[in-house]
């Protein structure tokens, strides 16, 4: 259902200093690539850019970058839950805080839907998937559904 109007650029980025994380500038994507030891592909879509980092296990991390150059969303799919501290950056504390507020459920997914932070993590052993985005960083007129 998703329509790409074009994949303009495919490249392997070099290593640059800095951390890639939700809410940070695009340049930080390379740090994620380094951390994840994966290959990066960059796609330009209408209204946002997407970096796909694919690692040796077949796991994929997608980082969604706004025209302003900020990472507004992240998604992942792989055998195990990835390093959230790495992917979420300063928003890791939001995860910690909101995860503790959800107490009744056991053994299933984690879903956080807040005005300033949206997060889902689900799946099972050998298959983990989820996404996180910051509504306030979402480019104008872009549906959060693009982060998937």
């Amino acid at each position, binding site marked *: 259902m998703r329509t790409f109007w074009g994949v303009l650029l495919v490249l392997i980025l070099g290593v640059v200093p800095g951390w890639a994380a939700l809410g940070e500038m695009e340049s930080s994507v390379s740090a994620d690539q380094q951390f994840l030891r994966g290959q990066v592909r960059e796609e330009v879509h209408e209204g946002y850019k997407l970096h796909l980092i694919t690692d040796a296990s*077949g796991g994929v991390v997608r980082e969604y970058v706004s025209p302003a150059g900020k990472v507004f969303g992240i998604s992942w799919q792989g055998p195990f839950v990835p390093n959230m501290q790495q992917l979420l950056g300063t928003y890791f504390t939001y995860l910690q805080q909101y995860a503790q507020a959800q107490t009744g459920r056991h*053994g299933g997914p*984690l879903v956080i839907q807040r005005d300033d932070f949206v997060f889902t993590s689900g799946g*099972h052993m050998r298959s983990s998937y989820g996404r996180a985005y910051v509504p306030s960083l979402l480019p104008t007129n872009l549906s959060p559904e693009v982060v998937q």
Partner: protein
Amino acid sequence: MRRKNVSAATLASLLVVMASGVLLTSCATGGGAGHDLPLPVITLAPASASVPTGGPLQFAVTVVSPTSTTITWSVDNILGGNSTLGTISTTGLYIAPATVPNPSTVTIKATSSAETNPYGSAIVTITPPVVSTVAVAPADSSTLVGTSVQFTATVTGTTNTAVAWYVNGVAGGSSTVGTISSSGLYVAPSSVPSIPTVVVTATSQADNSQSASTTLTLTVSNSAPLFVNFGPNGDTGSPNTTHYNGLFTSVTVCLPATIDCQTIPDVLVDTSSVGLRVLNSALTTVPSTELGTVMDSTGNQVEECVQFADTSYVWGPVLIADVAIAGEKASSIPIQVIGDTTFPVPSNGCLSLGSGPSLDTVEALGANGILGVGSSVQDCGPNCAAGQIFSGYPYYVCPSPSYVCQTAYLPVVRQVSNPIAFFAKDNNGVEISLPTISSAGAPSLPYTNAAGTSLVPAGLLIFGVGTESNNAIPTGTNAPTVYALDENGQFEASYVHDNTTYQWPAFLDSRSTALYVLDPTTLSILTGVSTANCPDNGYYCPNSTLTLSSIGLTGYGNVGSGTITLSIANADTRFANSPGYAAFNDLGGESGNGLATDYFDLGLPFFFGNNVFVGIAGTTVPNKVSAPNGYVAF
């Protein structure tokens, strides 16, 4: 006859009491009333009392004017009493008879040996026994067919502690459900009855309105009982912290190739993970320090960090143990011991650390361990054996001298393994069979009331698929659908709404406490039932119970297709209407926050009333369909 005596005694008693003051007064005034010596005045305390059958009652006797006299005790004028009326000792200790006499009152007399034999008396009413409790042990146990179990009944409140024994309401039981002797020795039948759980009841012979019941689940060597309850943390009284729908069994851990074993109860049964993980604190008689160690290629002890979907995690060493469940045993397999603090959780790895809780205590885990019986042989597989380390990688070593933990490759044979795959037989998968429960829920599985008149059976975890008479996948009209799993252990769920077909990943997860499916907005649209999350506990609270019917399921490569129906109730209503209940078949919760990210995590509610088969990857499917990654059938 006896009534007359009682009346006379009562009258006499009153006269004595009244007379005592008069006589004392007359003595004080020096009147002899025709006697050279005053007669003793005798009173008993208590003057009247009730005592249950068999019960003791101590009387105090007061003798005045003079105090020197010999006292003899009688019950209804029988010296020392008898077994019908009760007995009384020379010190005034009355012991009521074992049964209530007719009439139920007797007269106790303390009689002086002085002239005219003055006496004091008291009235005792013997009441039926007060059986405050009957208790039966062992509670909610299991045993192999053909074996025996010694039950004991503890009766309090009466000296008559005899009980009558029943199995499924039949005195002495039967050959079908097992027999029980007058001494409580239960002998199991030779085969598992159609309902594998039977009710054993002990009824007090002193008061047959008082009884206690417990359950006994009958198994064979390839089946273990499955319990659903709140687990070791119990009912906290708050839905926000109580662990509902916990599926438990017992697992025996042994030092490799020895008979040094420890049976660990309350281990969660999990179809969505693989391998046995036990709390270090639960290993007491078989300490983790005596289990075999697992080394990586550099000779360093291997540790593991497993992150679960909700970002909680477990950390601890990979160790070698024999793992026995029911009558099956996996010899020398790698397990994980959780909460061994030899090495701290690495801050440079196991890196969602801090987002979710570390499940390293009974309180945090809600269990003593997790038994992963999913569709693969190892928890990680080839990805962890070589190649590249990826984010969330589970295996570590923490070598000297720094002891800083770092990721490490581990050959698949040393990875934490599915115990079922390493049984000597019945090693190609499991069947999980849980009984149907009411939509109102059930207190637990198994459950029986004190009278033994209602029963919710335990479930069964049966090892092997198509390997024994008890684990064949049915054929014919009762045949389940076999769904091949994709390389991620999943199949596909679809739903048609307004001529649009929506599709999501789906998997079975017996450790999930609810049907974690879709999201409130999507559910509202698809079912027309306004749905929101409950305010505090994260389950669904729809306005009314909603039904998702004709959910399509499709296996990998189109191997297996069928439909299921899911019902999701208002969780807060369920909890409020069924306090103390641990098992519910229609709890739901959100899995994502939009159509694109939703999926179907089919938790424990899906398993009630179902026989679910989980086939391990690489095994031959009984009906020969292609399922290289394993399969599920239901």
